[in-house]
Each structure stands twice: as C-alpha cells, then as structure tokens.
C-alpha cells in the first residue's frame, strides 16, 4: 500500500493548488448529480408517497418492481439513454448526447427508483402511525401526501442523500452518454476511470479521495441544515 500515502498527499496538493481544470470537473460533478437528485426527488417522492398510501390492484407488484429497479446497473441505464439520445434514436433530434443534460437524464433515471422505493418505506411506516388521525381530519389524498412528506422530511433527506451518493459515485452511465469529453462532460468518476486507464494509479486514487471529500461536504451540509431546522423548530 505504498500508493495510499502518495495518493493522500497528492490529493491534498490537488485541493490546495485549486487547479482550474479540477475545479471545473468538481463543479460539473456537483451540477450533474445535484440536478439529478433534485429532479429524482420531484419524481420519486410523489411516486413513493402514492405507493405508500395507495390501495390499488397490483400495488405489491409495483412495489417489488420499484425495489428491484434500485439494482439497475448504471451501464444499462447509460445504454438505454444512449439509444434514445443517439442521433439515430427517437430523441436524437434534440442533440443532447454528449452534453451534461444527457448525464443528468441518465442519473435521474438511475436514482428515481431508489428515492421512490426508500421513501415508500419511510412514508408507509409513518402513515401507519398517523392513519387514524388522518381519517379523523377527513384529509384528501393530496393533503395526506403533503402531510406525510412534511412530517417525514428528515428521513427523506437521508433518502435524498442515498440517491445523491449513488449519482455522484456512478461512472457507467455518464461515461456512455457524456463521452468523458474534456472541459465539457468530464466529471470526477470519468476522470478517475481515465487516469486508471493511463496507469496513473496514484492520481486516480487522489481524485477518488477528493470525490469522497466532496461527498462528505454535501452530507455535512445537509446534516447541519437538518440540525439548524430542528433547533429552530424547538426554539
């Protein structure tokens, strides 16, 4: 493991030097994965809530399917999005392949099932707790969902972080639909894959450490947001 110490010091040097190329790559990683997380939350939370409180035929089947989709391999998502966005595909006229937008689409598809499946579990447990209260208030389904989402917001933050973690860590999808183009679609994970293929393992590992630090930063930010919100609520 002589590489670890070298990589740690290299990672430190990279961060301290604030290399503009690295900053651009970090910024794009955050832009793509945070966008995908926000969009996936908009899609996944309502879906999870509907599955949590809904009573319809085939609900069990849908839940199993959504849970199974949590295991979607990123490279499969990348391939599907590629086939749609390719110039020869049905959405090729949009000209989105090899753009950050294509990467956001791929990551959104990848993590929406994760957010839907995890939020379904959170909200269903919460709903069991409050079901009688809701009935006594004669809430509509929409009001019930809003109340559940608001009351479960802290647990749902963790759900969002799970989605974000999956998005920022994956390489299989973004390398296919983004193309790892320098200064355009190169993100942290595709840089790591590139440096590995160049045999520059210490640099690849150093970039991996930087990525971990970024993920740590995002998690810390969400955690402090939550702490201050809780403090305010009980102030």
């Amino acid at each position, binding site marked *: 493991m002589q590489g670890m110490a070298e990589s740690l010091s290299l990672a430190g040097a990279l961060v301290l030097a604030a290399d503009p190329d690295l900053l651009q790559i970090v910024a794009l990683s955050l832009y793509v994965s945070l*966008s995908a997380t*926000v*969009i996936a*939350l*908009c899609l996944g939370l*309502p879906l999870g809530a509907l599955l949590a409180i809904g009573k319809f035929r085939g609900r069990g089947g849908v839940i199993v399917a959504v849970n199974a989709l949590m295991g979607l391999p990123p490279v499969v998502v990348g391939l599907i999005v590629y086939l749609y966005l*390719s*110039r*020869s*595909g049905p959405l*090729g006229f*949009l*000209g*989105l*392949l*090899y*753009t*950050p*937008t294509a990467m*956001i689409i791929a990551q959104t598809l990848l993590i929406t099932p994760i957010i839907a499946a995890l939020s379904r579990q959170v909200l269903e447990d919460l709903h069991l707790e409050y079901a009688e209260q809701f009935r006594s*208030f004669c*809430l509509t389904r929409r*009001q019930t969902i*809003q*109340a559940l*989402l*608001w*009351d479960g917001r802290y647990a749902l933050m963790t759900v969002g972080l799970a989605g974000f973690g999956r998005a920022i860590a994956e390489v299989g999808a973004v390398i296919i639909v983004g*193309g*790892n*183009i*320098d200064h*355009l679609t190169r993100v942290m994970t595709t840089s790591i894959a*590139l440096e*590995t*293929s*160049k*045999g*520059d*393992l210490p640099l690849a590992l150093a970039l991996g450490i930087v990525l971990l630090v970024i993920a740590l930063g995002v998690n810390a930010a969400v955690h402090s947001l939550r702490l201050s919100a809780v403090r305010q609520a009980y102030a």
Partner: protein
Amino acid sequence: MISRFPFRMDALVAFAVAFGLGCAGGMASAGGAIIVQSTTSTANSGLYDHLLPLFAARTDMRVNVVAVGTGQAIRNARNCDGDVLLVHAKGAEEEFVADGAGLWRQDLMYNDFVIVGPASDPAAIAGLSDVREALAQIADSGARFASRGDDSGTHKKEVALWAAAGLDPQQASGTWYLETGSGMGATLNTAIGMGAYTMTDRATWISFANKQDFAVAVEGDDALFNQYGVIPVNPEVCPSVNAQAAQRFAEWLLSAEGQAAIAAYRVQDQQLFFPNAGAKLSDKN
C-alpha cells in the same frame, strides 16, 4: 402540522423543468463544435491535448473528443453520433466508407504495436523479432496472455496475428488466454497485475504510468505496423453532421501544418506518432 407545509410540489416540478430546459438551452449555444469519435490511444497518450490548442488557434470551432475503442467508435459514428472518425483498423474503416457512412478515408499517421511482458519472461520471447514465433512460444509455454477482447483496433490486429501464426487461442480462453473486454489501459493494468503478456500500441505503452517491471519483449516485425486513418462522416447519411467543420478539422490534420504538429508530439523524449498522410488532398473529394 399540516398548515406548515412550506412548498408546493408543482412549484418544485416547474423549477426542475425550467432547470432542465435551462441547461439544454445553454448547450445549444455551443455552435461550431464537432465530435471526434476516436480510438483511446490517441487520447490517452495526450496527442489531442497537444494538437487541439494548435488547431484552436486557427479557428473558433470546438473539437470534442470521445475516446472509445475503435469498434465502438465506428458504431457510434454509424449512429451519426460523431462528425469525424479517427481510428486504427483499416479494413473496418474502408468498409465504413464503402458503405457510404464516411466521405473518404485517408492515412493519417502510424506507429507500431509491441508485445510487453514481465521481466521474468516465462515464454522466453524477449528480443524475438518475429511476432508469430513469439505468439507460438507463448501458447506452447502456457504463459498468460491478456487480450483486449473488445473488438478494438488493437484487438482486431491481435486476432489477425494469432491467425497468421496458425493458432486459435480462443480454445484456451480463461486458462492462459485472458480476454479482459476492456480498454488498453485497463488491459495493461490487468496484465501487469497477473504477470501476463499483452499487445499494446507503442504510444499507449510509452505514456503508460504503471509499468512496474514490465518491458517491451517483441517489436520491429513488419506485421506489427499500426496505421491510423481519418474519416469525415457523410452528411448525406447523417444530416446532423457539421460537415464543413468536420472536413476542415480532418484536412488540417492531413495538411503540412497538422502533420508537422503530429510529428512534434513527444513523450519521454520519444516520438509517439509518425505522420504519413498521402499529401494528395485534391484526390479525396
């Protein structure tokens, strides 16, 4: 509890849609850009980092490089997902042009393939100049050989060399013949990790940073010649192609200036690519 609900779902969705459209609009403004579907060796060795600033100084168009294996690059270009193809598998390239997918094909530059192996040299091939003999010795000795196995230009060449040596390593797949199904760099990492021989283009090898105790074992056979070609994608087949810009880039590579720029690129004091464009630009159109 319910009255405190601070945001509306539809507002969030509207935000997300606006966000998505915003970034789509931002991309549309990047006009005058072309995509080069390229083999990995030219990108991994840093050739584009050397060439593109020189080209950028002459034009305002942006050249975006997608570096994948030759097989995948050709497939992507057939799907119209590229404007210029820069790869190294002459047979497949000529087929691409013959099918009408490419406008024309021109030799651009060359280097050579080498077989690299561990210092212990279990098949005793170091210094051989006949690559067929070397492959036969590897097969006989049962020493491990890592193959790309990914339909790349290097893989096609390697398969052809085994056939020329009268051998079918596929029968030993998974024993001493290991198909990684990965790019050159990943295959080199695998080979070095396992002490296996492998075949690589010299540019990737020279610029590869994780050599450990590996060195070139076989080189110099004419059969190891590695020709790179450049092809503009046919705008009649792919209307989305930025034909003018694609031709301009391809022709710049083939011009005296582009060829000199290729020749000037050196890593560790070694020239990686040797320009050999036919210099007959007028014949191509």
